[in-house]
């Protein structure tokens, strides 16, 4: 219940509001007299009349409300029903405006309602004109001035009537946001914005490890996770949820230990970005569908170059004089892309040639072919072509590496170990590069070679011939008796690193970790995939030390 001060304040604000809106109504009507079909003016006129009606209804001023409601109905013919606003309609609306002003000043002066019949005349005229404009062509016209019997005000309770029954909305089918182009656009814009916040927060944290930056990352990831869930992007929502959980864990350790570990965050970010790409591809067709109603887009910062994801490794790069940093980055990624294509070709040829049993093939040709000379020529020719293609691919990869090194120098990045031959493996969702030089063997796990020690907390062991090696599992998943291990040479002893997938061999451009990242356990650097994404380079010595 309001006290008298509250009521006086409400009257005062209502007075300002209704006068302001009636002025807006007049302004719109005068402009519409010259340009009666302007949709923006019609929409503005409707809104102002609607606000007058709503305010009057709120204050319990039935005459004002009824008259504003009918005037709004007349405007809605033009706004919602495609009936053109004409001179007669504008004239009647101006007359109604005069009545509304008169009634408004009176109720504001008296601080109470006036008799509803005070609005009866203009209300009847408005009803008649609405009916006439809605009547089909050829139907007898209705003269508003001769319309005597008032029709009941649609949708409004009569004065003194009991309040309407509570509105119970009928069951409706809620729109699936994933199929609604406008919602998809909103989601994609939101995705861009929140991912930028996540990346910026992580970069800030790496430079200056304070929990506020991680809180911003967690907040943005949480918001985006919710939106992704609403859009049916379960993979993205899950990846973001894991990032949120890892941030919270880091913040808690930060609070207690003062030395926050961040080693889990970047692989999780990579997983988020992969899921984000999948989500974006899913909505690609809908996002380009022009929506029926679009609000003016907010000013957005320029988009990152195509293919660029998390610019961790080159964020500090100084652009070459006169050349925009984005352009250098794009060139850099283009070269990486070319190199990845050549590297794939190279790998395929190496596999084909190394798997070929050249001697066996020649023996078969000599034994079974009717024309062994021609068959042998063709057989060797094919192999020679493969060898030539392999040599060319090697040259191209070497050239790409040279160009990358030049560009990296140009960007001012200091690199200790630029190129590493490594084996790319997947552990959980993250791909790691293990330097080839440190790999002793790759083997399958079986019930025979996977053991569990009776001491040391029942840790898992891998038997390789006569050696028993500790099994290290970075994914923290339950190790089952299948999958693969990479036996890696540590500084003191070898150990078996459990992996989920052997992705392939790659000569990779490795960038060093900087700032706070230097202390990340298990990782010595990051490398760039062919598509520009960042992966982690495992450091066997650090893994061994951690264990």
């Amino acid at each position, binding site marked *: 219940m309001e006290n008298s001060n509250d009521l006086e304040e409400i009257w005062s604000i209502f007075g300002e509001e209704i006068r302001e809106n009636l002025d807006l109504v007049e302004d719109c009507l005068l402009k519409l007299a010259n340009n009666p079909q302007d949709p923006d003016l019609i929409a503005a006129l409707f*809104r102002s009349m609607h*606000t007058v009606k709503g305010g009057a209804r*709120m204050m*319990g001023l039935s005459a004002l409300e009824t008259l504003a409601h009918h005037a709004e109905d007349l405007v809605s013919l033009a706004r919602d029903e495609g009936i053109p606003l004409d001179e007669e309609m504008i004239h009647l609306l101006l007359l109604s405006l005069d009545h509304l002003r008169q009634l408004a000043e009176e109720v504001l002066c008296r601080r109470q309602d006036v008799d509803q019949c005070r609005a009866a005349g203009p209300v009847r005229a408005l009803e008649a004109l609405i009916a006439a404009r809605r009547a089909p062509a050829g139907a007898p016209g209705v003269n508003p001035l001769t319309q005597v019997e008032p029709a009941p005000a649609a949708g409004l309770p009569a004065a003194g009537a009991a309040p309407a029954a509570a*509105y119970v909305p009928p069951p409706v089918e809620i729109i699936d946001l994933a199929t609604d182009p406008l919602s998809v656009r909103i989601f994609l814009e939101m995705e861009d914005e929140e991912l930028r916040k996540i990346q910026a927060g992580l970069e800030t944290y790496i430079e200056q490890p304070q929990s506020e930056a991680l809180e911003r990352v967690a907040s943005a990831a949480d*918001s985006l996770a919710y939106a992704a869930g609403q859009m049916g992007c379960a993979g993205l929502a899950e990846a973001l949820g894991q990032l949120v959980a890892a941030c919270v864990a880091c913040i808690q350790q930060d609070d207690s230990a003062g030395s926050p570990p961040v080693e889990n965050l970047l692989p999780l970010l990579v997983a988020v970005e992969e899921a984000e790409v999948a989500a974006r591809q899913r909505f690609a067709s809908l996002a380009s569908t022009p929506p029926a109603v679009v609000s003016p887009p907010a000013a957005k910062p320029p988009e990152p170059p195509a293919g660029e994801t998390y610019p961790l490794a080159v964020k500090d790069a100084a652009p070459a004089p006169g050349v925009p940093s984005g352009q250098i980055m794009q060139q850099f990624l283009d070269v990486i892309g070319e190199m990845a294509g050549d590297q794939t070709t190279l790998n395929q040829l190496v596999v084909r040639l190394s798997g070929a049993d050249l001697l066996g093939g020649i023996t078969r040709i000599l034994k079974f072919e009717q024309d062994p000379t021609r068959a042998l020529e063709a057989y060797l020719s094919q192999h020679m072509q493969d060898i030539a293609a392999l040599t060319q691919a090697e040259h191209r990869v070497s050239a790409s590496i040279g160009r990358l090194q030049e560009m990296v120098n140009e960007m001012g990045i200091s690199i200790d170990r630029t190129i590493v031959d490594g084996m790319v493996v997947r552990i959980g969702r993250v791909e790691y590069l293990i330097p080839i030089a440190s790999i002793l063997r790759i083997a399958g796990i079986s019930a025979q070679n996977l053991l569990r020690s009776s001491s040391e907390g029942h840790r898992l062991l891998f038997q390789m011939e006569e050696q028993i090696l500790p099994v290290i599992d970075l994914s923290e998943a339950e190790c089952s008796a299948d999958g693969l291990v990479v036996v890696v040479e540590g500084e003191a002893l070898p150990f078996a690193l459990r992996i989920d997938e052997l992705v392939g061999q790659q000569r990779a451009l490795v960038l060093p970790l900087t700032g706070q990242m230097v202390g990340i356990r298990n990782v010595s650097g990051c490398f760039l995939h062919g598509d520009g994404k960042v992966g982690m380079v495992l450091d066997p010595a650090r893994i061994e030390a951690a264990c």
Partner: protein
Amino acid sequence: MEKKRIMIVDDSPAMRLVIRNFFSTDKNFVVVQTAENGRDALEKLPAANPDVILLDLEMPEMGGLEFLRHARLKTRAKLVVLSSVAATGSQAALQARMLGADAVVAKPSGAVSYDLAEKRGSELWQVIHQLLGMQG
């Protein structure tokens, strides 16, 4: 019990004040933010973190229907449309429901008659208690 956080989105200052006053009579609620249109509400939403958003439909710049599309992605708050046309089952009210409004309630009326809570206000009060799982 922690107070439930209310955000009011309406272009009418008087309506915002009336609704704010309405909730000020109930110690279970606090109005944490008001906004004069959908765009204004989107800017204020992260800091406000409301439990319930009371939303008008007809507003300049960004109306209630467009705001609902954003809100379904950007907030977990319950979305209650306060519409003066809701009782007639208008197209706008139906669209609001289809866009995910948790409830559509007629705007309060007769605010100056000292019995708001016994008129439309009571419906609003009941709907919000029901949506938030609060005991009436």
